[in-house]
């Protein structure tokens, strides 16, 4: 018994290690965000495709907007990409990218290679806007209404199923709100 107690620290550490390992590979889904119902945080960052152009939160307001957090180091973003290209064809929404903690060259190449679905991508190299948004990893997608209020946060890849289940009803509702002039 006495001998067994000596293994206790080892067991605790192994358990913690398992959690940390899962943390690495985990893709936390739909996370309630403290920011839902609040305005998009203000920012002033360069555009990905044009380093001289500065974009701010004002550029996102007016339409029903999706902000998609992506990066070239994120394999799930690659999986998600064709669906984003599809979504970009939907006239009801405008899709913007938030290029998160990435390298400009690599990101530009990616967009040239895979087709660019975004109106523009915000280049958040240091992750400052990501921090303000409480971004946990990539990909994540935020829905912002025409007043610039964050209405939803979704963590993980979007595909047809996820889009129909998680986004379509909300987009329909927001479109209605916008038409009614709310």
């Amino acid at each position, binding site marked *: 018994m006495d001998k067994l107690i000596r293994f206790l*620290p080892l067991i605790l550490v192994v358990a913690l290690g398992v959690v940390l390992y899962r943390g690495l590979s985990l893709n936390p889904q739909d996370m309630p965000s403290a920011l839902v119902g609040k305005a998009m945080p203000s920012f002033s960052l*360069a555009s990905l495709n044009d380093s001289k152009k500065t974009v701010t939160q004002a550029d996102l307001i007016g339409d029903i907007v999706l902000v998609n957090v992506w990066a070239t180091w994120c394999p799930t973003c690659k999986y998600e990409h064709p669906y984003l290209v599809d979504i970009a064809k939907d006239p009801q929404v405008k899709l913007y990218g938030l290029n998160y903690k990435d390298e400009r060259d690599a990101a530009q190449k990616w967009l040239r290679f895979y087709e660019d679905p975004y109106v523009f991508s915000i280049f958040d190299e240091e992750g400052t806007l990501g921090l303000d948004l409480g971004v946990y990893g990539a990909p994540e997608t935020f829905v912002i209404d025409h007043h610039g209020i964050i209405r939803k946060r979704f963590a993980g890849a979007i595909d047809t199923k996820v889009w129909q289940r998680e986004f379509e009803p909300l987009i329909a509702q927001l479109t209605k709100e916008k038409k009614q002039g709310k």
Partner: protein
Amino acid sequence: MIPDLVTKMPELVPELGHIALIIALAFSICLSVIPLVGVYCSEQSTLKRLIGYAKPLTFGMFIFTSISLVILAYSFVIDDFSIKYIASHSNTHLPYYFKVSAVWGGHEGSLLLWVFALTAWTAAVASFSNGIEEEFIARVLAVMGMIAIGFIAFTLLTSNPFERLWPNVPMEGRDLNPLLQDVGLIIHPPLLYLGYVGFAVAFAFAVAALMAGKMDAAWARWSRPWTVGAWMFLTLGIALGSWWAYYELGWGGWWFWDPVENASFMPWLIGTALIHSLAVTEKRGTFRNWTILLAIFAFGLSLLGTFLVRSGVITSVHSFAADPSRGIFILMLLAIAMGGSLTLYAFRANTVASFSRFAFYSRETALLLCNVILVVATVTVLLGTLYPLLVDAMGYGKISVGPPYFNAVFVPIMSILFIIMGIGPLIRWKKAKQGELRKKLIKPSVLSIAFGLLFPVIYGGEFNALVSMGMILAMWVFLVVIKEMVNQYKLTSKITISHLGMTIAHAGIAITIVGVTLVSVYESETNIKMALNEKVIISGYEIEFSGIKYVEGPNYSAEQGQINVYKDGDFVALLKPERRAYRVQTMGMTEAGIDPGLFRDVYVALGDPLPDGAWAVRVHYKPFVRWIWLGAIFMCLGGIFSMLDKRYRSKKTSKVSSAAVADSQENTGSNLTTHPAKVSEA
């Protein structure tokens, strides 16, 4: 030959740095194998001589890591943008001192600095270990070599700072993150790393002791100065980080419970427990297993901190570019270090119960309680930091834990700690007489309660329970160590230097408590729109906005507010808060204007320009905020004094292997309350 090569082919220089690091790896591999072969050979074998190789191999590893670091710094200074790391962290317009500090401005270079710190500690252990058995130190150095293998391989395989950008060498670099272009950031990371890595020494001593099967008083005495040294660097590093965040981030906050701050705070808490536990093991021969575990976990938490910062599992202001492959590598290092040492612990830990018994009313109990509380505090911080991850891993969605959790849990735990911390130095080892202790404690407790209750009334004009509590605790901690030192002096008419160190360090804690309490309760802040020559009053200070100047820095342009501060009509200071636009990184930065003082800071940050020449201005009044860092300086001074103690410098001391010998030492007076009655007890 090599200088010739450098002048003829300067583009080869970075490769030399790369090669030097590879050679250092080779040295570390040899270091972790060869001396151990010697250790495990029989006395007659010629291979026994291999033990002697430990020190030369250590110096080789240190020298080649240093060469590598110097070459990286040199390449920064000469703007060699063919190196990817330099191209993304420097710029020709960066002042030279920031070019040097940019070496550790990103993941790859700071990892190289980590490795450098590790080899520097190893070399220091090799140089200053003349009093220690050769076989034991060979084991310690071998363990350090194993850690070095892990980290040098990590640097070379996943994060090579010497990676090149052939053939498309950029003409200009992307510049260092403006947040990092600051004096505080030149010294903060090296100090922090020296602290983190210093616990590797304590870890290596613990593992060596487990391997040798001797966890005795001598072992504790050998590893004590190293542990105190690491703890000092960590203390300074954390304090500097807090100070930097205070003046540079422009929020006026000094602690944010950010995951990375927590990552440095956890090893500090465990390290604090470890220093005290080592003292007990050295002097009384008890708590041996406990000390070993603390040494293992202090280093484990340092590694965990590295993991959290660099794997991207947690987002924070400090995060480096997230890269899961790096995360997996560090996790493996963590698993090997922790798994290996704890398995060793499970099989080799002391099976014999400590033979030095102690009663409930004794200094041992007080120290044990303090250590348990420190461990509990560490676990709460760890939980708060990992909670989002834990909840996620179990599939319950995401919850974020912020400062409210930490403040609610941490403050009560620490308050209990401070109460016991006061009793500790006054109570006797082994067994105290109850009546005597009560008599000793009456005066300081009455005094500190009276002081605490009166303080808010006199200083703030009305009673405030929080202030009273903080001031009672601070006064209590302070009075008790002073009283104890006076008692000791009366008794033996001399004070040992390590005793003085303990007193100063405890006084430092008291000073920090005062700072934290007063600034948290009495600080005030206003956000206002200020037109030209407008005045506002905050906490008795008159703030006048007298315009904006445009200033050009080496790599930025700035709008500089001109703000006059008056008190009772007298001019106090001209503050110049800035809003900087860095040209290359197209990033805005605020530089706060601060009028520092021992009893208060006036802190002004510039907001946005408003129509009609007005500006948004944020003004903070921060009473006693400097005391937070002043306390940390005292703690470090205390550490230095206790390291200077003669008994750590004695050359070739005879083997001290039993607690009984340590006991007799203690009676010749070190940092304890010696008492005539004790001699007869021992």
